[in-house]
C-alpha cells in the first residue's frame, strides 16, 4: 500500500482519473455546518461546486466523465466545465493534494 510518488509534477488532463490521497480528506463539519478539505497543517474550504466535483473524484471516473455529469446538472457547456475542473484539480495537484488513479485506502 505504497503511494510512493515519482518526483515529477502531476499534470492534470481530461482523460485522467484522479482521487484524493490518504492525507487529504473531504469531510462535512457539523459545528461549522460546512464542507472542509483537511490536509497537513491546512484546512481548505471548498465551495459548493468544488464539493460536488471532489465527491465524484473516485479514481475511476475521468475528469471528462465528471465534466459531462456536471454539464447536465448545471446545464452549461461541457468544454467550459472541463476547463474549470482541470484548473481546480491542477491547483490541488500542485499543493500535493491529488493523486492519479484509484483512491488510496
Amino acid at each position, binding site marked *: *500500500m*505504497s*503511494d*510512493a*510518488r515519482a*518526483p*515529477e*509534477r*502531476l499534470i492534470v488532463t481530461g482523460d485522467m482519473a484522479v482521487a484524493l*490521497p*490518504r*492525507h487529504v*480528506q473531504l*469531510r462535512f*463539519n457539523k*459545528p*461549522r455546518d*460546512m464542507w*472542509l*478539505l*483537511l490536509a*497537513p*497543517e*491546512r*484546512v*481548505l*474550504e*471548498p*465551495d459548493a461546486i*468544488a464539493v460536488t466535483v471532489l465527491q465524484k473524484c473516485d479514481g475511476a471516473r475521468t475528469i471528462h466523465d465528471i465534466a459531462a455529469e456536471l454539464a447536465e446538472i448545471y446545464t452549461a457547456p461541457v468544454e467550459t466545465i472541463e476547463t474549470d475542473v482541470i484548473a*481546480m484539480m491542477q*491547483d490541488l*495537484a*500542485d*499543493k*500535493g493534494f491529488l493523486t492519479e488513479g484509484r483512491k*488510496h485506502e
Partner: protein
Amino acid sequence: MSDASALEPDTGLTPGKGTSHGLPVAVLLEVTHRCPLQCPYCSNPVELDKPKSELSTEEWVRVLHEMPDLGILQVHFSGGEPMARKDIVELVQAATDAGLYSNLITSGVTLTRERLDALADAGLSHVQISFQANDPALANRVGGYKNGHAKKLEAAKWTREAGLPLTVNAVMHRQNLHELPDMIDMAVEMGAHRIEVANVQYYGWALKNRAALMPTMAQIEACNRVVAEAEERLKGILAIDYVVPDYYAVRPKTCMGGWGRQFFNISPAGRVLPCHAAESITGLEFDSVRDHSLGWIWDHSPALNLYRGTDWMPEPCQSCDFKEEDFGGCRCQAFALTGDAANTDPACSFSPHHDAIFKTAETEAETGETRFIYRNLAGGTPEA
C-alpha cells in the same frame, strides 16, 4: 477554494473582525517533554514538565473525545518526543475514533518500522520528521544525539513505505543555513510531500542560544532566494512552507492567528496554553484539563481571555490600522524583549524597541559564538 493554513488563517474558518475568538481549528498536543534529542532551539519551555506529571492515557483519550464538538479538526501529536509515550498508538487511535485528523511531529530517532505500521493502522494521517542539517556530523551536533541523522533517514524511508505522507521540518539558523539547498534536495529524494523551512523563533531555549543561532542579514537574503527558486522549480513536487526570522522583519507575524483565537496547545501535564511558548510569560495561570472541560477552558480561561480581541492593546497598537490583522504580533516575544506581554511585538517597525532588536540581531550574528546550551530536564548543559 480559499486556503486557511495554521500559519495564515484568513478565511471563513477565521473569526470575523471584532470577534474575540472562534471555534478552535487545530490543537498541538505536547504529550510529553521527554526527548532523546537536546536541540538548542527547542520550542518547549525552559522549565520542562516532569514525566510524573504527564496526563494518563485515560485523561488524553477523554480530552480527545471532547474535541470534535468544539469544532477542532486537527491534532498534532508532539512533545518532546511523542514516541516516548508507550501509549502513542492508542492515543492516535482515540483521535481517529473521535473523527480527528492526526499528525505526528517527531524527531524520528526512536521510530521503528513496526510502530509506524501500527500508527498507520490506527489512522494516522501525516508524519512530520525534523532534520537538523544535511551533513550528518552537523546534524548530530545540533541535535546533541549521536547517529541521530542516520536514524531519521531510515524513519523517513519507513514512513513512505508505510504509505504515510511526509513533511520534512527543517529548522534553520546561522550554523546550518548554508545547507538549505541540500536539505531541500534531501526532502525531494526521500519522497517528502512538503518541507517546512522554519527559521528559529527566539523564545525559551532559543533565546538562551540566540547568539549562537542568529543568522546574518546576508544569510536571510540568500535564504529568501533559495526558497523562491525552489518553490518555482519544485511546483507540484514539494510544497514549501516558509517561516521567516522576525528580528529582521518590518511587520510582525500574526502569531497563532491571534492569542486564543483559533488554536491552542495542551502541555504534558494538561495545561491549556494559547501557544507552546506562553508559559515563558510569568504571572499567568493556565487552566488544566484535569480541572475543567476543554469547552469551559476555551471560553472562560482568564489567561486565554487576557489578550483576546483588541481591547487590551496599548498604543501604538490601539490606533493602528493593522491591529486586527496581526494583533500586535507575538505576546511571548513582547514579554521576552520588553518585559510586558501587552507591548507591541518589537518585530513590528512601529515598536519603539524595533531598531534595538534589529541591532541586537546584527551584532549577535557577527559574534562568532558557536557553542550551544543543550536542552534537557536539568535546565541546560553547555556544549563541550
